[in-house]
């Protein structure tokens, strides 16, 4: 499903070249649950952005569902993001002037899905994440855990193939952390490919497969605890 071969990403900082990714080979089959761990500056966020088509590699090839996506133009990449990829961020990134429902609806709106269809899908997503009664609230009226659940609903409302979570629990307390991870894993059990970037070993070790990065390279790739 995801095939990275010899992916490099170089940045020019001053007169120094920083190799955020330095020859990464990674194969992730559909339905896998992968955690990416490593110290800051190890390239794990760059890798996630690369997987999410927010960043372009300097070299190497990236096949997503058998298609070389590095050569797509900006418009096609946006479309692929919209239809195949869901993002969950540490800072939630909810639009403050839209209600929970409208936030969840946003990717469908951008994709031009008809209103009736949108309503159905949003209602289902709200239900799945147990926030049906918060749909008409604005983000500022929601707790951190609820906000992240809205964000997860928004990331999955388009039925993507991959869910990319960047430190999804970084801004949450212990109880909300457990809850959010439960929700993400439930989605994974439903068939979604889940990739979680974290520096928290406790979170990272929950995955079926733990990838450790150092200095832009994959240092180790071993099985994790894997939830049932």
């Amino acid at each position, binding site marked *: 499903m995801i095939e990275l071969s010899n992916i490099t990403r170089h940045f020019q900082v001053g007169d120094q070249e920083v190799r955020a990714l330095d020859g990464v080979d990674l194969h992730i089959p559909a339905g896998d649950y992968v955690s990416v761990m490593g110290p800051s500056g190890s390239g794990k966020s760059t890798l996630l*952005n690369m997987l*999410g088509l*927010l*960043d372009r590699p300097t070299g190497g090839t990236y096949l997503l569902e058998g298609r070389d996506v590095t050569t797509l133009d*900006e*418009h096609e990449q*946006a*479309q692929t*993001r*919209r*239809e195949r990829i869901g*993002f969950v*961020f540490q*800072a939630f*990134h909810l*639009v*403050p*002037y*839209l209600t929970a429902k*409208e936030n969840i609806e*946003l*990717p469908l*709106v*951008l*994709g*031009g899905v*008809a*209103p009736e269809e949108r309503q159905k899908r949003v209602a289902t997503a709200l239900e799945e994440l147990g926030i049906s009664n918060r749909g008409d609230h604005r983000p500022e009226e929601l707790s951190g855990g609820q906000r992240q659940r809205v964000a997860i609903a*928004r990331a999955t409302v*388009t039925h993507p193939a991959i869910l990319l979570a960047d430190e999804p629990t970084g801004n949450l307390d212990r109880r909300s952390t457990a809850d959010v991870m439960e929700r993400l894993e439930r989605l994974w059990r439903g068939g979604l490919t889940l990739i979680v970037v974290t520096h928290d070993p406790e979170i990272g070790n929950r995955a079926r497969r733990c990838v450790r990065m150092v200095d832009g390279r994959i240092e180790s790739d071993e099985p994790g605890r894997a939830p049932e």
Partner: protein
Amino acid sequence: MAQRDFIRLVFASISSHRLRSGLTALGIAIGIAAVVLLTSLGAGLREFVLAEFSQFGTRIIGINPGRTMTHGTPVGLFGSSRPITIEDALALETVPGVESVMTYSGGNAEVEGPDRSRRTMVHGVGSAMPEVFKMAVQSGSFLPPEDPRTARSFAVLGSKLRRELFPDGSALGARVRVGGERYRVIGVLEPKGEMLGLDLDDGIFIPTARAQALFNRDGLMEIDIIYGEKTAVVEVVKNVKRAMIARHGQEDFTLTTQEQMIDVMGNILNVLTFAVGALGGISLLVGAVGVLTIMTIAVGERASEIGLFRALGASQRQILALFLAEATVLASVGGVAGLALGSGGAALLHALVPAVPVDTPWSYAVLALVVAGGVGILAGILPARRAARLDPVEALRAE
């Protein structure tokens, strides 16, 4: 993205920053209001002045002595050129295309009634005056058509002068003295009103030759010709010029057609209107800079929102369109408010001070709105492009 959703998204974003949006729109509103108000005044002035001039009809050609182009008052009187005479006027009556000819010479003199006297304008005119200047006789009759060189001492009073000299009773048949000479009143004119501050009703009309004698002048101040409705003005001008040159041996006079005068006047006033409109345009420019500033700040502040939109699958073009639409909506809302403010202000001004002529030309109003929308697009395009080109990774990191 469906059009309806797009519009909803734009308005949701605008209404979420109420104060900021309001102030931005206000900047444009003040600009548009200034343009509308100032052009209303300019256009009102234009209408007013043109109406003042055309109340005498438009088929008039004026002949003044002297070669210099002068409007109305004859500077040429004191020049070396040959004076225009009543004989010239008589000769012009036979020129093809000419319908009637009126001579004019005037000044200021004491007019004495039976028991009151008043210093006022004395107009020495020909019998064709009511026709040429579109003035009607209220009672009695106007000066009779007779040989202007030997005209009898009849006088016609303006309505205001009549009121002043004969407060109770008819003036017809009464005797008045003008500059010491005796005249018989044979008619009173209808009120005509003022023309550029000159009260036409406060004056007395006597035959030209008598006025010339009174003020001791050889020449006429002006000859006014009225030409036929179906005659081309250039034809008449050519004929009149030829006839005058034949009599004077040279072109020592100036022809001014009313049409020409109104044209020139209208052009001047158009320029004036445009100029005051441009003054208002400066404040519109300031408003545009306001939109530019606010939108630029907004792009910076909303970077993470833009990054999110990109991550959710918005294309660069969609981001560009959203921000551009926001700027355009703000400017257009400001434009509509400014139009209401400007035209309302103009109407209010006119209601409070009726002397101020006001006319809101709708073409200008529509133009103002189009300009406001255009200003929004222009002021929005730079920030919107910046928003669209934001690196989503960087944008998401901004918090």
